[in-house]
Structures are given as C-alpha cells and as structure tokens.
C-alpha cells in the first residue's frame, strides 16, 4: 500500500492541473453555446438551478413544449405580424435556457441570411420574435431519473418574404 502512495500523489497533481486548465476564465465556454448572465440583457430574477449541470434539449426524450410542437406553431401563427415584402428571407434564432421549474430566461437572438451569414432583418422581425418567445410560457420542466434539470433550447424561424414558413427544431 505504501508503494502506491507516490503514484496516487502524482495522479492527484495531474487531476488538479487538468482542472486548473479548465478554469472559468478560459476563452472557451464550459460548453459550446453556454449563455452567461448579462446584467444588461437578462432578468436578474430568473434563476438557473444548477448552471454546471445544464443540459441541451436533445438530451431528453420529453418534448420542451407543452402540447408538443403544434402548440408552439399555433402560438406564433396567432401572434406574429408578418410583413409581406421581398428580401426578408433567412433564419432568426432565439436561444435561451429553461430552468428546472420550466421558466425560460437569458434569451439571445441570432439573425442569419439564406447564405448562413449574419444579417439584420428590416421591419423589426427579430425583436418581434424575441418578445413573443419571451412571453411564451408553455415550456416543460424536465425531470430525469428523479432529478430536475435546466436545459438549453432554441427556436429557429425560417422567414421567407417576411413570413414564417417553418419553426425549428
């Protein structure tokens, strides 16, 4: 047993060193797509239950949407004010976190043309979709093996001629 002590010590040093390399101030986020709290953008009252254990929506079989996807489609169909105009084509994505209580927060917007390059839609389509997403309250809270989870979700709107033609994923 005594002979294994130096080996255990070396392993522990390596472990600490590897953890050190994974520090919070790394230019790499803990996970691709992590959304850090931004006081300028985010509701300070929105709490994430366990930031470090937050998962992605696709990790669970349970749908994020109460009433499945048709409920989300219906919600946007009834409320989105489309603008019939040429040139307003592309994708608008709203990314956010749904916490362990089924509340959504930390919303981020990405607007992209059909060429997959960043673009600014005219006619405030993006901000309108962002606000509607913020107001949607039909998210499922996810409990897996008795454990509640926070998870990242996104909604992507395919826009053609100023109208929503698909809601993804």
């Amino acid at each position: 047993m005594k002979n294994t002590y130096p080996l255990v010590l070396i392993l522990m040093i390596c472990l600490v060193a590897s953890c050190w390399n994974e520090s919070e101030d790394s230019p790499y986020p803990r996970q691709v797509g992590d959304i850090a709290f931004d006081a300028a953008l985010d509701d300070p009252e929105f709490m994430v239950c366990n930031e470090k254990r937050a998962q992605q929506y696709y990790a669970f079989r349970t749908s994020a949407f109460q009433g499945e996807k048709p409920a989300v489609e219906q919600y946007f169909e009834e409320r989105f004010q489309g603008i019939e105009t040429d040139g307003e084509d592309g994708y608008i994505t709203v990314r956010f976190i749904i916490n362990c209580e089924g509340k959504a927060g930390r919303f981020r917007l990405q607007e992209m043309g059909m060429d997959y390059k960043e673009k600014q839609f005219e006619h405030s389509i993006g901000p309108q979709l962002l606000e509607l997403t913020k107001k949607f309250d039909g998210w499922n809270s996810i409990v897996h093996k008795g454990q509640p989870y926070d998870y990242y979700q996104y909604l992507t709107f395919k826009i053609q001629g100023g109208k929503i033609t698909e809601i993804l994923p």
Partner: protein
Amino acid sequence: MKQLYITLFLLFYTVAYSKQNCNIYKWENNTECYKACRLYGKGGSQGSRSSQKNYDRVIELCPTYDDAYWAKAIPYLKRGDFINWRIMMDKAVELAPEKHLGYRGWCRYQFLKDYEGAIEDIEKLESLVNYDIGFCQNSDYHLNIAKALCYKGMGDSEKALEIIEQHLMTTEYPIGLYDYLHLGVLYLEKGDYSKAITALNAQIKENDLLADNYYYLGLAYKGLGRMMDYEKNIKKALEMYLNDYGRYDPYSTPMDKIFLEDIKREDKEMELG
C-alpha cells in the same frame, strides 16, 4: 427487419467511431499531422471546453485535418448557432468535399429545412463521385430519399414521388425505416388511396413500431370510405403513440411526423361521425 437494424447499427457505428489510420501520416513523414491524428477525438465529450480546445490543437498542428473542423462544428449545429457551424463546416467541405458534402447537405435539410441548399450539396456530391452517395448521418434515409423530401418541402411532390419510386426500384437497396411511409403519404396527398395503402403496408412489414404508419393508413382507408379499417388504424395509432411509438428525432421534427393532436382530431371525428 433484424438484418436492417444490424446493418444500420454497423453503418452508424462505423461512421461515428471509425478512426483514421494515423500511420498514413507517419509513412508520409508528416510528423505534425501524425501528432494531430493521434490527438483527434481525445478531448472529451462533444461541445465541452476540453473537446473544443483539443480540436483547435489538432487544427493548429495540421490545418488540413478536415475531420477536426467537421467535429468542432457539430455542437454549434445542434445548439442552434448555424452561422458558426457553417463557417467550420465549409472549411471541412473545402478540404474534403467528397467526404463532407453529403453530411452538410443532410444537416441543411434536417436542422434548417434549407431544401434548396440541401439539394445543391447532394447533387454536387453526385457529380463528384462515381459510387453510391450513401445514407445520411443518422441512417434514416439514403441521400436520394432525403433529396426527394427536399423537393416535397419545396412543394414539388411530383418530383419527390418520381425520385422515391425510382430509388426503390434499385434492387440492391435495403428498404429504409421510413421510405415507404413518405411514399405512402405522397400517394395519400394525391388522393391515390390504394397505392398509399400498399406503400404503408410495405412499411409496416419493415417497421411495425411506428404510430405514424397506422395513422396514415387510417386516413387512406378513410379516403376509400372503408370506415371500419379507418377506425381500427386510428385507434392503433393512438395506442402506439401513447406508448412512445411516435416518430422521434432528438434534434429536429421529421417530415410527415404526426402529433397527438393529429390522432385525437381523427379520434374525435370518429366519435362524432
């Protein structure tokens, strides 16, 4: 059926986990790429800090290592950052178009319903190779069938039907889990109920564990006025759906997927009717 599952599993396993023979670089005296190859895939779980750092290290050592761009891009795709996904994915395609065009085309369909873009990539691949272009990443479809679904998405159902019919005539082609489902739905939408029933029954023979097949089969019988068969199949679809046998893709919503409200609407109609 069992053979199909085994084939698909082996195909998926091979694509997902096959490792390149790093000795190729050694034989070429390319030490840096050899080191990169040995490092590749050793960074930890997909999308994690350590994994992304590791792919960057691989790229730094060997900037032509196309798989590193491809693998580094994947979590961006799955998490809805399509701008960054595309930047990295394009690099992989630029370095090895024959290897990555099919994947990029499939993802443009699966994640973004970018039908035109997906067709463009698949057809570009077809023009580059003289062998079978193969299946999409999750093995759900042959890329030809995926192309047909893109045409349907664009509103050209006739073209979709033509591609699927032609593809299924290829004798060496193993029937997929959903090919006849989509074929059946295309016939159903055309009002060709008898052909829809034949196609959907062919799918059930291959894949009995899908509520969607029975739902559409029910609708086809309804179209023919065979109401008892309609009711029987809608009830079966409902039972299967409630037991988690609905079509499922963790990342996106497949074309022609049914939801509980679709079945319940029919169920209610039956009660009223």
